[in-house]
């Protein structure tokens, strides 16, 4: 297909989203139909593009020199674009129901839809500059979503989110400058864009710059110590927390780091350097730290947010192994975690939407009143723990295999961190499940008489996600093969 359609896929949600508050809707349902159609059509477009991949590059504008805004579709982009375009329509459907209780729907959906386009922009970016532009835009368009409720808490959270993100981008910017100056091509190339001679000349400088940009993008991927915005941003409406802070935004950070590591600096250069060890240490610490904080946290969404922090570092762990297998592990966890976490977040959202309860200790006995939601929540919890047969196990398996294969002694400790984190995951997820299923003996069910399962608009996405979790867990082979091809550059 013509590469122009790549740009179209980015443009449709942006324009469509901006139009939304401008159109005078007579009925709410009209707006919902419009939005869902928009998103679905765009997702179909994306999938058509993925299946008939355009080979050439579409250049939108030239900035100075070799800087251009350009789009293309390669293996890595395919994975990310495929992921988000699959999740978005479902998440939109879910948010229709969720947002009935919130105000300013029009603006909300505007930004929600625009974010779709921007995230696609990140995944379809052909060069660092384009990615950087969309990365910054992502911060800005998601900001109103975070502060949607406009409570003091939300404003503080959004401010923090903004400062962290922009600060991170500023450091990523440094990396971009280096790549533009020393890189032999502005486009992403698997294996790196800088020649070995250049790299050897200023080895430590380049490593330092790499570390800077890693941390810069790492802000969105919530690596320690730059993670505190994520739990706070949980004040946003759940569709936002679920889709953006479990998938789109944070995965964009991870995605950018993948681009940075594999497609810009090149793993051959980075492997075995102090930068790798430093980052691996940080990532391992984050894995454990996120989980530990999740165990301590009693607010449902914040607990899930901490869990996200930990799981994102799983992905980064795969990246810092700096082997193709590591990339496979990272990508598979990126996909699978997206399903697991969006699923658990949507369950949390369903609970909050239906019952206005936010804390875990309020969930006693809920499983009897919301059997479907909790069944699905249990599935996602088990998957997050990495129970075999569900998708979480597969991605962890891939990560660990890569760690073993890398023959890196520190990676072995990383395995230990993963396992410790799995245990902590079991603790923080299953305490919720057990509380809901097995309240104390003399629990009075009348106190939660108002609790019931949500309607189909919420349940449908949930069911789809749960099914996907199981399906991926049982037949992950096509996915893994695809990812292996991507990591090898043959896709």
């Amino acid at each position, binding site marked *: 297909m013509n590469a122009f359609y790549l740009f179209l896929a980015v443009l449709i949600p942006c324009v469509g989203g901006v139009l939304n508050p401008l159109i005078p809707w007579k009925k709410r349902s009209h707006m919902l139909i419009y939005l869902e159609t928009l998103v679905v059509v765009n997702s179909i477009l994306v999938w058509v593009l993925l299946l008939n991949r355009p080979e050439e590059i579409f250049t939108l504008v030239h*900035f*100075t020199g070799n800087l251009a805004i350009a789009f293309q579709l390669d293996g890595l982009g395919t994975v990310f674009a495929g992921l988000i375009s699959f999740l978005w329509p479902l998440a939109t459907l879910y948010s229709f129901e969720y947002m009935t209780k919130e105000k300013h729907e029009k603006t909300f959906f505007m930004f929600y839809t625009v974010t779709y386009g921007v995230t696609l922009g990140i995944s379809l970016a052909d060069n660092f500059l384009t990615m950087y532009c969309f990365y910054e*835009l992502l911060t800005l368009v998601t900001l109103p979503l975070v502060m949607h409720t406009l409570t003091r808490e939300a404003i503080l959270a959004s401010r923090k989110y*903004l400062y962290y993100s922009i*600060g991170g981008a500023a450091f990523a910017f440094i990396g971009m*400058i280096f790549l533009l100056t020393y890189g032999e091509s502005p486009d992403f190339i698997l294996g790196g864009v800088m020649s070995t001679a250049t790299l050897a000349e200023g080895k430590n*400088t380049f490593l330092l710059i790499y570390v800077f940009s890693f941390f810069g993008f790492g802000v969105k991927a919530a690596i320690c110590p730059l993670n505190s915005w994520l739990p706070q941003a949980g004040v946003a409406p759940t569709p936002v927390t679920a889709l953006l802070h479990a998938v789109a935004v944070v995965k964009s950070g991870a995605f950018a780091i993948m681009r940075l590591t594999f497609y810009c600096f090149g793993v051959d250069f980075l492997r075995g350097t102090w930068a790798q060890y430093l980052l691996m240490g940080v990532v391992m610490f984050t894995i454990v730290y996120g989980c530990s904080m999740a165990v301590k946290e009693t607010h449902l969404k914040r607990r899930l947010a901490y869990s996200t922090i930990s799981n994102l570092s799983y992905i980064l762990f795969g990246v810092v192994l700096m082997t193709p297998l590591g990339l496979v592990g990272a990508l598979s966890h990126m996909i699978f975690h997206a399903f697991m976490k969006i699923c658990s977040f949507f369950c949390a959202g369903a609970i909050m939407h239906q019952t206005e309860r936010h804390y875990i200790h309020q969930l006693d006995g809920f499983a009897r009143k919301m059997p479907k939601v909790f069944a699905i929540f249990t599935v996602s919890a088990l998957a997050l723990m990495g129970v075999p047969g569900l998708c979480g196990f597969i991605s962890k398996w891939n990560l660990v295999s890569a760690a073993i294969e890398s023959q890196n002694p520190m990676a072995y400790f990383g395995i230990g961190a993963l396992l410790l984190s799995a245990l902590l995951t079991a603790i923080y997820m299953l305490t919720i499940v057990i509380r809901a299923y097995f309240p104390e003996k003399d629990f009075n069910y009348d106190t939660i008489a108002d609790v019931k399962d949500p309607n189909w608009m919420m349940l449908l996405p949930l069911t789809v996600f749960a099914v996907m979790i199981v399906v991926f867990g049982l037949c992950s082979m096509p996915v893994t093969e695809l990812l292996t091809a991507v990591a090898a550059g043959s896709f």
Partner: protein
Amino acid sequence: MELIRNFPCLSIFMAMLSAIISSALKGNGARRLNTFVVTAVGVMSACVLYLTCTTGESYVYKMGHFPAPIGNEIRFGSLEAGMALFFCVIMLFSLNGGRKKIQIEIDPGKENLYYIMVDLLLSSLLALVYTNDLFTAYVFVEINTIAACGLIMIMESGRAIEAATRYMIMSLLGSGLFLIGLCMLYDMTGHLLMSYIQISVREIAESGTYMIPLLVTIALIVVGLAIKSALFPFHAWLPDAYGYSTVSSAAMLSSLVSKGYIFLLIKIIYRVIGFDIFVNSKIINVLFVFGLAGMIMGSMSAIRENDIRRMISYSSVAQIGYIYMGFGLGTTVGMVASVFHILSHAATKSLLFVSGVGLTDVSGEKTQFIELTGAAYRNVAAGLAFTVGSLSMVGIPLFSGFISKLLFSQAAVQSNIKMLPTLIALAVSTVLNAIYFMKTVIRIYTPIESKYPSVSIKKNRLYAFTLLCFVMLNVALGMCSQPITDWITQGLSVFA
């Protein structure tokens, strides 16, 4: 074509003449005359720009009867013409944006005085841009100072007068240093025309005698101009001067007056001292350090500030730090970045001042943040424009700030020693910028039940239109930066 060569000289005199005529006119007349003159000068500058760009040369225009070594000259290349055009555009926009405020804040009897000052300012700026004579430059620096001071004190509030006094004192210190440096240079070289001084300076530098006096001279001139353009740590006068004057004045002061001095400095660096000699002196390292310090400290002060006008003013300190940091890098690329930042900052800062006043107007004339809550809903245009300005300041892609950040970093990468400090300072400064600007943006977009009335765009057409122009200018700088950097590079190359 021949006619166009007269335009620079003509535009300076037109501006001066209009100032003289304005003293006989009433407020409205003076205003119309001023608008006309600014527009006309803009058009003329555009013609000159067209001429110089197509030929790619610079021209010398003899003033008076004496030929070169003794007489006075005007010299213009594409960079000068472009600057003149840009200054006119910004001045026009700033005046239009603040027109209402001028009518309200200034005693009707004195309105024509205001426009006299503006005319004088324009003429002095043009002269600074075009002149090839160092002493003429000094004279116009002083005229510029007086005009600027007049623009500040026209408000007649205690604070404004105090601010004007402080501004005046600092300016005089600066011009004193500039003057003595100039005299010493004259002493050493025996010339006042830039081109001839440069030849002599080159000889001195080659022979190696008088190196210390030369260095001292350079230092005096640079410090003098740095004080005048509010480089950290000489910025103490700035927040008051920008914060308590009428909005058009603030916009013009920050984006034109200080930029005029900086442009003069660039000119001296290239035309008088010679770029390589300047780079080899230690002074650029000092500028570099002060630039970096300014970037950080300016933003820090801005974060602490509780008043939107003063916050924007402090942000200027930081931005001027950027420009000097670009000088300090000591490369042509760094210089290009600095010149671009002059444009970018001028466009953005005046936009911020003008839109900021729109926000304070709908918040009961209060400049404290707490009063501004939700102001963007009460004045939609100003809110949007302020947001754009803020994003540009923070360096979000698509806006001009991003390009200047990009150019600075690209320049920094070329220097081995200064690379890391620059990059880190840029990153930190971006974060700090984000903190205070985005905090404000979030605040003005936080809805609140307000006691203040809203203003619709329809009632404020001119204002909204001005803002739109500013935004367009900003985006144009951000999106089509290639021709502009090309023009700057080419301009700098014919500069020397």
